[in-house]
């Protein structure tokens, strides 16, 4: 008889993983109880309905566009053949290395009335030449969607590559063309991964402050900041943050519905690679034009603008400090990636062998942080650690701080915020390992440890790589948690971007921004290499 895997251990471990976020949540709730009634009444009357509507429009718009771009581009590069396909299959990931706030300030600086593009257009066609305002709802949605579609692209492409071969065969045998194949077979099969990618985009959008504030687009997050910075009431700000969590819960329910009830487990490995569907002539070039446009807007043009500004200021601003900024940025991102990956594996394993209310609740809590503005999380982290430090001091004595202002505090914040990013791909990876395979392994007498090390980890391969590298790139771009919890001397590239943009010196911010993009290309290249290898293996 096969020994059933222990359920208790994994469930307890899942709870342990949720503890950091739980501590942060408790601190937030505690703070929120002190909210000011008069301020709250003011917000209800003059602020809330507008920012709720704004936030809904933004999230729906960004998710719709990012999902459309990500899914269609993934389908084109995974299942079709067109000029430049091999290049675009990795190049379309590169916009991930450009932080949304950087894309936003580049867009506004070049496309607003006084920017280079409208100015040039007016000089050619006269002063009356109408240019649609970039600082608008449409502009905000476009920029956030361009910055976040790679999440969907990455997840969708993984799914299409796994299913791709047989999907196309099935579709063709039913007499369906490539687009009918996409909508009627591939997308339904890839639903869990598409929904996972879309959920990441939605949460990222809800938590964004950097990009929306460049556009002066008021969302829930900007209202939180205003309550804190302007009304001087951190407590009221935290109450707003709790209300935001209600939105998040709704979004998560929506994701569950989108995922569907089916339990997906995929694909035997070792299926022969399918023929890609050739897009001949004009259709091939249309695909090329589409991919090239997205790539240009999301990466090439912003990178050129950044490089030009960076070149102008490099003489004053570029010094040996940058070696430290880059090393610390990469080091912190690497540590956070490894930590999030380890914890995501624990959660993923627990959900597999001990699926139930406890594990599911623990997973939900542990991954909530991605939808909470980084600054709110940071307040939670410093408050929670402040309480612990005080306890330490009464026990151990001493003058200084134990946990606050250490790299540990920083990592705690990163884990609370980015665990969700690692969780999705790892869970997707687990879902692709057939339960029957595991049952067979256990019936052969393999212990839990052997099942994990000899079956799960090797088969998780793709999911693990995606998870680690997504966190890595996200941490490189992270700003508010880094600012508020970093120890002395731990300035990163994002900190430098903040200091320049806060002074309205966007040109000078281009240098550290460009450094983030260039340093971010390294993990994106790794990710690409992994995808190509997975594609070859399939």
């Amino acid at each position, binding site marked *: 008889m096969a020994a059933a895997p222990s359920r208790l251990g994994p469930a307890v471990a899942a709870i342990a993983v949720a503890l950091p976020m739980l501590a942060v949540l408790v601190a937030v709730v505690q703070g929120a109880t002190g909210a000011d009634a008069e*301020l709250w009444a*003011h917000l209800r009357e*003059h602020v809330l309905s507008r920012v709720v509507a704004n936030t809904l429009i933004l999230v729906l718009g960004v998710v719709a566009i990012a999902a459309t771009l990500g899914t269609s581009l993934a389908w084109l590069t995974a299942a079709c053949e067109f000029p430049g396909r091999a290049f675009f299959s990795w190049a379309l990931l590169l916009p991930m290395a450009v932080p949304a706030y950087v894309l936003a300030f580049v867009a506004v*600086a070049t496309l*607003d*009335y*006084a920017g280079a593009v409208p100015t040039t257009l007016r000089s050619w066609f006269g002063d009356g030449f109408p240019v649609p*305002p970039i*600082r608008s709802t449409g502009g905000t949605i476009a920029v956030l969607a361009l910055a976040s579609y790679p999440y969907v692209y990455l997840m969708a492409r993984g799914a299409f590559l796994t299913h791709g071969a047989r999907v196309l065969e099935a579709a063709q045998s039913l007499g369906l063309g490539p687009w009918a194949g996409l909508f009627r077979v591939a997308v339904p099969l890839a639903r869990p991964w598409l929904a996972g990618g879309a959920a990441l985009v939605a949460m990222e959008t809800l938590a964004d402050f950097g990009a929306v*504030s460049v*556009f*002066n687009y*008021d969302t829930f997050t900007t209202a939180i900041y205003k309550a*804190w*910075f*302007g*009304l*001087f009431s*951190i407590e009221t700000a935290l109450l707003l943050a709790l209300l935001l969590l209600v939105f998040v819960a709704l979004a998560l329910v929506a994701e569950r519905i989108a995922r569907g009830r089916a339990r997906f487990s995929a694909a035997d490995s070792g299926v022969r690679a399918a023929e890609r569907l050739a897009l001949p002539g004009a259709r091939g070039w249309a695909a090329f034009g589409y991919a090239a446009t997205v790539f240009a807007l999301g990466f090439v043009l912003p990178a050129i603008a950044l490089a030009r500004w960076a070149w102008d200021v490099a003489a004053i601003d570029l010094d040996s400090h940058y*070696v430290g900024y880059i*090393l*610390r940025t*990469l*080091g912190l991102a*690497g*540590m956070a990636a490894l930590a999030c990956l380890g914890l995501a594996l624990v959660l993923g394993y627990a959900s597999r062998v001990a699926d139930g209310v406890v594990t599911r609740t623990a997973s939900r809590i542990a991954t909530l942080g991605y939808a909470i503005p980084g600054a709110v999380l*940071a*307040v939670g982290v*410093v408050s929670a650690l*402040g309480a612990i*430090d*005080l306890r330490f001091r009464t026990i151990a004595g001493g*003058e*200084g*701080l134990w946990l*606050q*202002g250490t790299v540990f505090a920083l990592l705690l914040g990163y884990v609370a915020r980015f665990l969700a990013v690692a969780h999705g791909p790892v869970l997707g990876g687990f879902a692709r390992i057939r339960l029957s395979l595991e049952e067979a392994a256990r019936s052969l007498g393999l212990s839990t440890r052997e099942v994990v090390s000899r079956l799960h*980890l*090797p088969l*998780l391969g*793709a999911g*693990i*790589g995606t998870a*680690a590298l997504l966190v890595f790139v996200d941490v490189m771009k992270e700003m*508010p948690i880094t*600012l*508020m919890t*970093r120890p*002395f*001397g*731990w*300035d990163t590239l994002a900190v430098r971007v903040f200091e*320049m943009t*806060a*002074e*309205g*010196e*966007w040109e000078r911010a281009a240098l550290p921004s460009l450094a983030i993009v260039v340093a971010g290309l390294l993990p994106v290249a*790794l990710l690409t290499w*992994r995808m190509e290898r997975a594609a070859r293996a399939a």
Partner: protein
Amino acid sequence: MSVLIALLSRLTAVCMLTGIAWASPALAAGEPLVVYSARKYQLVEQLFQEYGRGRGIEVKSVTDDGAPLIQRLTAEGAMSPADVFISVDAGDLWRATEAGLLSPVKSPILERAIPAHLRDPAGHWFGLAVRARTIAYSTERVKPSELSTYAALGDARWKGRLCLRSGKAVYNQSLVAMMIGDNGVETTERIIRSWIANLAAEPFTNDTLLLKAIAAGQCDVGIVNTYYLGRLQHEQAGFPVQIFWADQKGRGTHVNISGGGVTAHAKNRAEAIHFLEWLASPEIQQRFAAVNFEFPANAGVEPLPEVKAWGKFEPNLVNVGTIGKTQSAAVMLIDRAGWR
């Protein structure tokens, strides 16, 4: 895949080790001085290091916005390593004082150097640089004789010609707070609504964009902190925007400060006071303000020639600390008036 993880681990280890080595400063003899600064790195770091070298100590600093730094100080409580808090807004200094995070300092040197309206009467904080917020106008489309007060920007003649920065910007909130103090809530709200009705474009996220919009012809007048224009004029001679000093026949132009105070739990209090006194001294005052085209807080010190070229002005002499008290009322007024 294990290859990838191993690679990532190794990369991380190398970066962390060299990163830490890169971060550790040269050894210094005395107790370090720790500064939490909302005045950004590029404006202060050089002076901080110079002070440290002169005193044979290490000056450690972190930067962030004022509100998060205040929150960090609050969470750290008595265990905080910080000795000095530097802000770029009088409201933040007022709030830090209210929260009990700053301690009063009695220093004849500081009291002599810094005028009374730019420091806390009890000595919790002292202004170190003055930032004036006033009217900027297009030299191509506006005559200075058309301009007078902040309130007059709501006149019909500026319909579709006015640009404003976002109402979320602290500098606008402190301007409105001052106006509430001078004119009361109702009059101020009427003025703000008249401005909003005159807007030529959605409010901007920073003063630099606003000034560029005036130069490009999107609008003709706006309200800005003068140092943003200083930077642009420095980069581009003949930048077609000029400063007009508002309310000179009334209470004077609105000023805010970048200033600092000694924290309540400073471990190195004597050094912290000495540091503030050094920052208030004439030569350092000149450089502290000049790096950002601001006005020195020390009345005996001249600003940069570029800054002097904007002419003399009468500042509103109300104590800048009162801004903090009125700021949340100002923010609520801004919300009601629909100033995005």
